């Protein structure tokens, strides 16, 4: 009986040891101690940032909708990997201007080129946001 009990406790210990520790995201700063936690204002800004889609993720959605491919497919290759004609360039430019009406100057269809990728178009939008 005593032996059995011992076994049980060792099994319990093993289970506890296996408990996974949540790893830090690569590049993220080390977690601060409670006394060093960021202020409420900082937290609010961070939460707001996550609630709103980033420019890149919105751009992925736009190109996926314009080409009717998945966002995973359109992440990386240039537009020329899809049927890239003047119609597609015009459609993407119109969708960009609708998504970011504050863009200045607004995106022109002639500026959207088949050699561009999601990252190129994200850079264009980022540079024109006020």
């Amino acid at each position, binding site marked *: 009986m005593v032996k059995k009990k011992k076994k049980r406790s060792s099994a319990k210990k093993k289970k506890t040891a296996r408990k996974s520790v949540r790893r830090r995201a690569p590049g993220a700063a080390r977690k601060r101690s409670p006394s060093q936690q960021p202020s409420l204002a900082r937290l609010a800004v961070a939460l707001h*940032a996550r609630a709103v889609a980033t420019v*890149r993720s919105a751009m992925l959605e736009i190109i996926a909708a314009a080409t009717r491919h998945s966002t995973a497919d359109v992440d990386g290759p240039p537009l020329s990997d899809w049927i890239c004609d003047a119609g597609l360039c015009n459609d993407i*430019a119109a969708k960009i201007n609708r998504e970011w009406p504050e863009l200045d100057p607004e995106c022109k269809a*002639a500026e959207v080129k088949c050699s561009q990728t999601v990252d190129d178009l994200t850079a264009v939008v980022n540079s024109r946001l006020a």
Partner: protein
Amino acid sequence: VRRLLPLTLLALAVATELGAQTSSDFAVVRYANRRGLIVRLMKHTLPDALVGTPLSTKRFVLLDRDHQRIVALDSVTDASPSASCPAPSARQASADRLCIPLAAGAPALVDSTTYALVLDSIPVQSTKPQYIGANQTLVVEPVAGHVKATTGGGVTVVEVMYDVDLTPDTSVTMEVLFGARRAEWHCRPVPGVPPCYRRGSLSFVYDVTKTPYYPGDKISARFTPGSSGQVPPGKISTASIAPDTTLRDTTVFVQGGFTQTNSGRAASVQARWQHWPIPGAIWDVPPHYASVLSPYVNALWTTDTTKSGYLNLGVQYTGYVSDLGSPLEQLILAVTPRTESDQKVTVSNFMYLDGEVSPKFQWLFGSIPFARGSYLILPHGGIQLGRTFEGQSVDRPETNDPSRWTGGVSGKVHFPAAKGRPWYCSFFGCAGVDLNVDWQHYWLNHVPEHTRTTNWNWTTVSAQYKFTRHLGLSASLNNGNAPPLFIYQRLIQVGLAFVD
């Protein structure tokens, strides 16, 4: 710091130096108060999970190269928008930049001093690459300005980037010059920043579409004299524009091959030049309408002595009504006044109105579930009206001065280059495969009395293997009764196609 210095110097000696202002991946801008650096990720963004999260800078090193000393950095990046680290938009988090403040006791940056910033790997929101910046050293040159121009049917946008954040100095204004001419620019006023300054790019962004650009013009910028007492030192470099080689959808199509008709066989060369937007001839009515004017050239040279070949010329106005929603995604309108001739030029018409509408429906384009393929089906219909100026007495199934309704469907399938470059790519090159089908039906409104039918069809099937993005091997089959003679013909052509 003492332990790090030799390592840093070694790293600086070994690592490939990237000019911060010339690298396409990064741009470094000093804080307005010179108490830090903003590293802009020009082609990447931080992963969504890290946006708004302070990142550790413990493995970043800033070296004052002129005085050979390390400048201490704060332990984490400044992730929240602030006066020293402006965010692109109040609505969007700054995912495209790292704001690295100096440590509290560190001396402020000096505009005329060169620094070197050693980066550690920075995670980015893409599958390839997943990290950038590892083992890279950015040279932070003395403060200066850089002019960049964006093209698209002419020069559309001029950007002047200064190596220091000028957001707080709202009185600074600039002039943009095309050669010696002062460019007319406009931009939407934004409160709290200098005119045309953008927090997104930390640069001046000018819309210069109203000013014509002439090839060879140097594009330069200068601070308006007396605009501010705070103008930083440093020269502003000029930009010159390379010829626009990235025109979209331009068809420069040269195809030579074998032709078989009812009467015989011959070699021929056909050339088409379409969809080349004439610089300056672009009209947009935002947000949904954009249009361009382009030349239309369709020429045939043939060895067949019974034919003379033809040269049909015109202009094409194309309008795009885009982002209409569901189910009609887009409407494409094309008006092409042009000449129209047969291969012997026995009959020539001037088609003063060749108008066509193509609706792009949401369920008629999309992805093919293999080889990353895409398809597009475009129905089209329109009207053709013309004047016959050659061969008015030639007997044919249509009277002079044609009037026709047109309708049909075109289909396109595209497969991009295979991933992983198979063995044959090193021999032939790989840039994808295109398959096209176009069926056009003509309803003739005016026909001679003896003619039995008013309906004719013309079908084109073509396939193209692209060696590079611009050069491909093309094979095509034309079958049916084409205007202006509507004589049955079958043309098989094989040749090289140049497409941009």
